[in-house]
C-alpha cells in the first residue's frame, strides 16, 4: 500500500507489457512461418502486481489430429498418382497414337493394305515398320515401369531414412520438453517444433500420436506398432531383398499384416511396388505374349516356325512370359535393318510361294479379331488381340484417373480442415497490430504512472527539504 506499491505495480506493468510486445512481435514476424502457432500471454495478478502466468499456444488437438490424418492420406494418394502418371504419360491421350492400342491398330491397318497388295515391297515394308514401332513401344513401356520401380525402391529407402531421423527428432524433443518448464516460451516453441515434426512423419506414415500431460509424445503406427516411446526410438529398417519393413524388429510392411500402416507416402510407395506396378507390368507382358504367340501360331514366317514377332529371337514360351514386353522384337528375318527381307512376311521364307499369294497376310489380318489364347493377366476372358490392347491401355489410364480423382477429393476435404487449423493457430497481422496498440497504450500508461509517482515523490522530497 502506498506510493512504493504504486511504483512496483507500474514496474510490473512495464515488465508484462514488454513480454506482451515480445510475443506480439514474435507472432508478427512468424506470420508466414509454416507450423508456427500463435502465442498469447496470459496475465495474472500477484499481490496487486501484474505477472505473466503463461505463454499459451493456440491449438486444437482435434484439428491437428484430423489434419495429420489428411496429410497421410493425401501424401499416400499423391505418391501413387505420381508413380502411375510417370508410366501413363508414355501411353498418351487417344489422339497421340502412342499407346499399344494405337500402335497395334496401326499395324493392323498396314496389314490390311499389305493383304491387298502382298507383292508390293512398299506394303511389306509398311507392315514391318509398324510392327517394329509396336515392339519398341512395348519395350519402352516395360523399361519405363522398371525405371519407376527402381525409383520407388530408392524412394522407400529415402522415406525410411527421413522417418528414422524424424523419429529421433521426436525422441530428442520429448527429452527437451520434459526438461522445459510448462508455460514458458521455450516450452511453447518446443511444442511447435514437435507439431512440425509430427506433420513430417504424417506425410510418411499415418501414426497415432498421444501426448502425456507435460507434452511428451508417444508414436504408434495406425496398426499399433510402437515407433517412439518417450525417449526410445524403435528403428525402422527396410530389407530390399525381401521387401520387408520393420520397426524395432516388428514387421510393419504395408499390406503385410495388421500391425502396419496404410497411408502416407511410404504406404503409397509399397502399394506401387507390391501391387500397381507389377499389375501393369504383368499385363504388358501378357499383351506381348498374345502378340508373339498369335503371329507364331497363325502365320509362321521363317522355317524355324517363328512368327512376325519373337521373344528376343526365340519362340514363344508359356513359362517365360514374365518380362516378355521388354524382349519382344520383330523377327530379324523380316527386318531389312538387320539384314532380313520383308518378303518373308508374304512367302514365309519359301521361295516357291507365288508372289501374290496372300494367305499369310489374310491369316495375320484375321488374327487381330481372333480370341487371344494366352493368359490375359486379369484383362478379361475371350478378348481379341485388338480388344486386349484397348482394354489394357484403358485400364492403365483409368488407374491414373482414379488416383487423380482420389487425390483431388482428399485434397479438397483436407483443405477445409487445414484452413480451419491454420485460421485457429495462425497469425492475423491486423489482430496482432491491434494488440500491439493496446500494449503500447498500457506501456505509456504504466510509464505515466511511474513519472507521476516519481513527481509525487519529488514533490514530497522538496517539501521535506
Amino acid at each position, binding site marked *: 500500500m502506498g506510493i512504493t506499491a504504486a511504483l512496483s505495480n507500474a514496474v510490473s506493468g512495464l515488465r508484462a507489457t514488454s513480454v506482451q510486445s515480445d510475443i506480439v512481435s514474435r507472432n508478427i514476424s512468424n506470420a508466414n512461418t509454416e507450423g508456427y502457432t500463435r502465442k498469447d500471454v496470459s496475465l495474472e495478478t500477484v499481490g496487486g502486481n501484474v505477472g505473466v502466468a503463461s505463454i499459451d499456444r493456440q491449438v486444437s488437438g482435434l484439428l491437428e489430429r484430423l489434419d495429420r490424418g489428411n496429410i497421410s492420406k493425401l501424401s499416400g494418394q499423391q505418391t501413387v498418382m505420381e508413380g502411375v502418371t510417370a508410366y501413363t504419360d508414355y501411353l498418351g491421350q487417344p489422339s497421340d497414337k502412342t499407346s499399344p492400342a*494405337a500402335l497395334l491398330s496401326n499395324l493392323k491397318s498396314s496389314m490390311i493394305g499389305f493383304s491387298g497388295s502382298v507383292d508390293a515391297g512398299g506394303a511389306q515394308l509398311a507392315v514391318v515398320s509398324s510392327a517394329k514401332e509396336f515392339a519398341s513401344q512395348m519395350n519402352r513401356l516395360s523399361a519405363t515401369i522398371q525405371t519407376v520401380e527402381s525409383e520407388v525402391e530408392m524412394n522407400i529407402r529415402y522415406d525410411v531414412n527421413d522417418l528414422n531421423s524424424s523419429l529421433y527428432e521426436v525422441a530428442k524433443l520429448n527429452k527437451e520438453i520434459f526438461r522445459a518448464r510448462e508455460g514458458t516460451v521455450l516450452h511453447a516453441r518446443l511444442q511447435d517444433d514437435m507439431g512440425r515434426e509430427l506433420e513430417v512423419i504424417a506425410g510418411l506414415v499415418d501414426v497415432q500420436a498421444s501426448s502425456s500431460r507435460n507434452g511428451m509424445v508417444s508414436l504408434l503406427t495406425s496398426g499399433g506398432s510402437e515407433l517412439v516411446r518417450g525417449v526410445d526410438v524403435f528403428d525402422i529398417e527396410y530389407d530390399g531383398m525381401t521387401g520387408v519393413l520393420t520397426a524395432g524388429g516388428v514387421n510393419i510392411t504395408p499390406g503385410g499384416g495388421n500391425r502396419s500402416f496404410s497411408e502416407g507416402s511410404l504406404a503409397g510407395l509399397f502399394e506401387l511396388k507390391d501391387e500397381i506396378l507389377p499389375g501393369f507390368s504383368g499385363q504388358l507382358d501378357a499383351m506381348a505374349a498374345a502378340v508373339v504367340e498369335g503371329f507364331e501360331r497363325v502365320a509362321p514366317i521363317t522355317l524355324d516356325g517363328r512368327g512376325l514377332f519373337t521373344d528376343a529371337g526365340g519362340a514363344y514360351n508359356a513359362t517365360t512370359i514374365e518380362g516378355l514386353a521388354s524382349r519382344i522384337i520383330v523377327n530379324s528375318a523380316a527386318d531389312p535393318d538387320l539384314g532380313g527381307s520383308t518378303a518373308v512376311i508374304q512367302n514365309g521364307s519359301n521361295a516357291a510361294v507365288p508372289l501374290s499369294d496372300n494367305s499369310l497376310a489374310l491369316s495375320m489380318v484375321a488374327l487381330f479379331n481372333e480370341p487371344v489364347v494366352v493368359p490375359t493377366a486379369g484383362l478379361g476372358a475371350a478378348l481379341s488381340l485388338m480388344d486386349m490392347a484397348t482394354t489394357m491401355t484403358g485400364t492403365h489410364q483409368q488407374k491414373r484417373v482414379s488416383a487423380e480423382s482420389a487425390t483431388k477429393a482428399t485434397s479438397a476435404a483436407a483443405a477445409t480442415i487445414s484452413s480451419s487449423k491454420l485460421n485457429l493457430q495462425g497469425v492475423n497481422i491486423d489482430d496482432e497490430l491491434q494488440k500491439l496498440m493496446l500494449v503500447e497504450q498500457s506501456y505509456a500508461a504504466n510509464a505515466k504512472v511511474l513519472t507521476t509517482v516519481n513527481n509525487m515523490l519529488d514533490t514530497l522530497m522538496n517539501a521535506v527539504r
Partner: protein
Amino acid sequence: MLGISTTATAQKSFELRSRIAEQSGNLNQASIELSTGFKQDAYKDVRGVSGETLSFRAEIDATEAYVLSNSLLSRKMDSISDSLSSMREQAGDFSNLMLSGDIGGMHRDVLRSAAKSTIEQITSKLNSSYAGSYVFSGLASDTQAVVQNADWTVTYTGDTTGSLSARIDEETTLDYGVRADDPGFTNIMDALAVVASTDLTSLSDADFSTLRNSTVSAMSSGLERLIEIHTSLGDKQGVVERTAERHGALKSIYSEAMLNIEGVDAEEAAVRLTSIQGQLQATYAVTARMSEMSLLNYL
C-alpha cells in the same frame, strides 16, 4: 474472456493463391480444348469408356485402311476389266471378219494377217500389268502370263495354284483374279493360232469352210466364256463399290462415336473459357484489394 476468431494472414493469402492456381489450370484446359477440339484428358472426362474410344479409333483406322486398299483394288479391277473389254472387242472383230463376205471373194491373206495381229494384241493385253504386277498370271504376279511361240500358239507361263484375292472388309475375301489359262482365252488363242499358221490360200473352199466353221465356233465359245468372266468381274466391282459406300458410312458412325467421347463442344468450351476468364479477373481484383487492406496503412 471470449476469444476472437480471426483468419490467419498466411492462410488468407494461401487460399487466394490456390484459387488463382486452380482457375489458371482450368483456363489453360479450356483454351487447349477450344483450340484442339479434343478433351485435354479424354480418359478423365469419360470414365469407364476409355477403352471404348480406343476401340472406335482402331475401327476407324481399319476402315480407313480398307477404304484405301479397296480403292487400289477397284482401280486394279478397272484395269483388268478394260483389258477384258479390249480383248473381247479384238476377238469379236476377228470373228466378224471371218464371217463377213462370201468365201471365194475373200482375201484369205488378209484374214491370216488379221489372225496374227489379233494374237499379238491379245497376247500383249494378257501380259499387261498394273502397278508393276502382271494381272493375268494368277498368283505369280512377277511373271508374264503368256509367251508367244514361233508357231503362233501361246504358252501359259503364270501360276496355276490360285487366283488373285483381296480382303475387302473384316469378313469378306474376294477372289477377283482372271487367269490367262482360262478356257475362254485358250479357246480363242488356239483357234487364232490355227488360222495364223495355216496357208489359207492353198486350202480348197471346202477345207476353208470347215476351218472357218470350227474357228468361229471355238471363238464364240471362248467369247461367251469371256463375257461370263467379265460379268462376274463386274459383279465383284459392284461388291467393292458397295463396300466402299458402307465403309464411308461406318467411318462416320465410328468417328461420331469417338468424338462423342473425346470431342469438345466448341461453343461450350468458349463459354467456359469466358466465364473462367471473368472469375480469374475477379480473383485478381480481390487479391489486389485484399493486399492493400491492412491496419498498417492507418497507423
